[in-house]
């Protein structure tokens, strides 16, 4: 079993290069801000950022100037408001113009599935009667060979790199997630390279004790980064809560590009890595985010000898 552990700095340096397409997924949960910040610190440029819900992570990355294009399905600060940096890029070209390629949620999921399963397209009952296919010519129609109405399809999406944040993995990258699993499995299989970032590294035996929870096999994983609280200010089910205070503060802070620049200086460029970020954040704030236990209960797989 190959040990694929490395630091976030090494993982980004090795796998994320200028001009690549990068997907940091996670629907509200397990959004890997640690990877996003490291990409900003390493000053990548001209990335195509892929994510269903760009969230604050891509707002920060767009403000930092790493991206020239975004493929997405919902631009919002979930439960709070807008993504002001992305809106500035789109509406006013600040700090630089941002090309958009836009789908609905299920369209994005379908693109990942087609990419992951080597299909030429994914059919879905959406887009009919919508202007979205006019805005995005990659949304097309296919005839039903059984005589029904035509159906919309989306093409496969294969990001150069996917970053998957999860609760735990073993050193070779066999990865288990629970709670909102979003489209993490699909984007991992669709990508050409995969960086797995976890709250905990566990023994292979822990993984093998519950094989139904393994959504991503080490087989397809290139790097394993142990980065506790790497999803802050989003959350990891069972480990910490969303730091809603930060999401609310961002709505205010992101009103002006200059204030974001100052925030990046303090919280991204100004810290060498995630450990320093967490130290700056303070143990008290992290402690507030800790949930009480809610164990899942045990099932028995049976020993068949």
């Amino acid at each position, binding site marked *: 079993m190959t040990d694929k552990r490395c630091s976030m700095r090494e993982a980004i340096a090795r796998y994320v290069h200028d001009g690549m397409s990068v997907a940091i997924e996670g629907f509200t949960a397990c959004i890997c801000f640690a990877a996003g910040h490291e990409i900003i610190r390493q000053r990548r440029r001209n990335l195509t950022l892929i994510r269903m819900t760009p969230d604050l992570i891509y707002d920060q990355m767009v403000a930092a100037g790493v991206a020239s294009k975004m493929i997405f399905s919902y631009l919002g600060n979930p439960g709070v408001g807008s993504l002001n940096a992305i809106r500035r890029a789109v509406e006013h070209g600040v700090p630089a113009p941002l090309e958009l390629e836009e789908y*609905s949620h299920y369209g994005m999921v379908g693109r990942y599935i087609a990419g992951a399963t080597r299909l030429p397209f994914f059919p879905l009952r959406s887009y009919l009667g919508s202007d979205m296919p006019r805005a995005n010519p990659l949304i097309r129609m296919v005839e039903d060979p059984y005589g029904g109405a035509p159906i919309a399809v989306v093409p496969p999406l294969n990001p150069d790199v996917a970053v998957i944040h999860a609760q735990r993995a073993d050193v070779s990258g066999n990865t288990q997630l*629970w709670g909102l699993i979003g489209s993490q499995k699909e984007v991992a299989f669709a990508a050409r390279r995969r960086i797995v970032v976890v709250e905990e590294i566990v023994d292979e035996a822990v993984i093998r004790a519950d094989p139904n929870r393994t959504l991503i096999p080490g087989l397809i994983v290139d790097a394993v980064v142990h980065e506790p609280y790497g999803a802050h200010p989003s959350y990891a089910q069972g480990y910490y809560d969303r730091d809603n205070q930060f999401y609310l503060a961002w709505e205010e802070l992101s009103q002006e590009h200059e204030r974001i620049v100052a925030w990046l200086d303090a919280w991204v460029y100004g810290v060498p890595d995630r450990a320093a970020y967490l130290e700056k954040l303070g143990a008290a704030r992290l402690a507030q985010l800790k949930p009480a236990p809610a164990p899942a209960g045990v099932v028995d797989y049976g020993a068949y000898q």
Partner: protein
Amino acid sequence: MSYTASELMIVAAARALAGTRTVFVGVGLPNIACNLARRTVAPDLELIYEAGVYGARPARLPLSIGDPTLVTGATAVVSQADLFGLYLQGGLVDVALLGGAQIDRFGNLNTTVIGDYTRPKVRLPGSGGACEIAANARRTFMIMRLKRRAFVNALDFVTSPGHLEGGASRQRLGLPGGGPALVITDLALFDFDNPEREMQLIATHPGVSVDQVCAEIAWDLRLASHVTETPAPTADELRIVREELDPEGTYRGREPV
């Protein structure tokens, strides 16, 4: 008993869910309305969230559609592939609650841009799941503030299909769900129960005149044969909303009507 416009919208939406089994929902007003419905007129109501949750039992007021409190104690938590494929597209959503920046007379919605798509005046969030929700849910309810700049003659962009050009145009295109059934606003309620599937006024809220409603709508508003008055929230409904569902008043507003 005084109440806010948001409280009245919550109560109206909850009542409209009477007897419903499944509802596709976001956070905020719709979430509170659904939880009120479950405690009153729809005890078997199950909440479906696009984040992948079926049968949530939140221990606190969820702050985003992916709040971890929606996961813990839920009946099922699934991938988004399954949520959109098996639950939504599979036809298991009875009612979906949607909102938008613009709506037209046939219930088509815009949540994408104000202005031109390629050079927008305002870039809005986009579809999220709304486009497929609007296509697949058996019925959709819209919850929006009634404002002239929102109830427009022609959308700048059709994000989510309603009754399209009206009449049977939606069925002709093969959309599986039934389309818009109800529009809940802070001033009045509307449905689409006519052959043209055109939005029509069915009730004004207490103290609101038909003229006030018409003034906020860009087109010549159709009236149902009997326009009634929305019954005010009951003390019990208000108690549940205020004491149980939104004790800190995050969503229910503070200004009485």
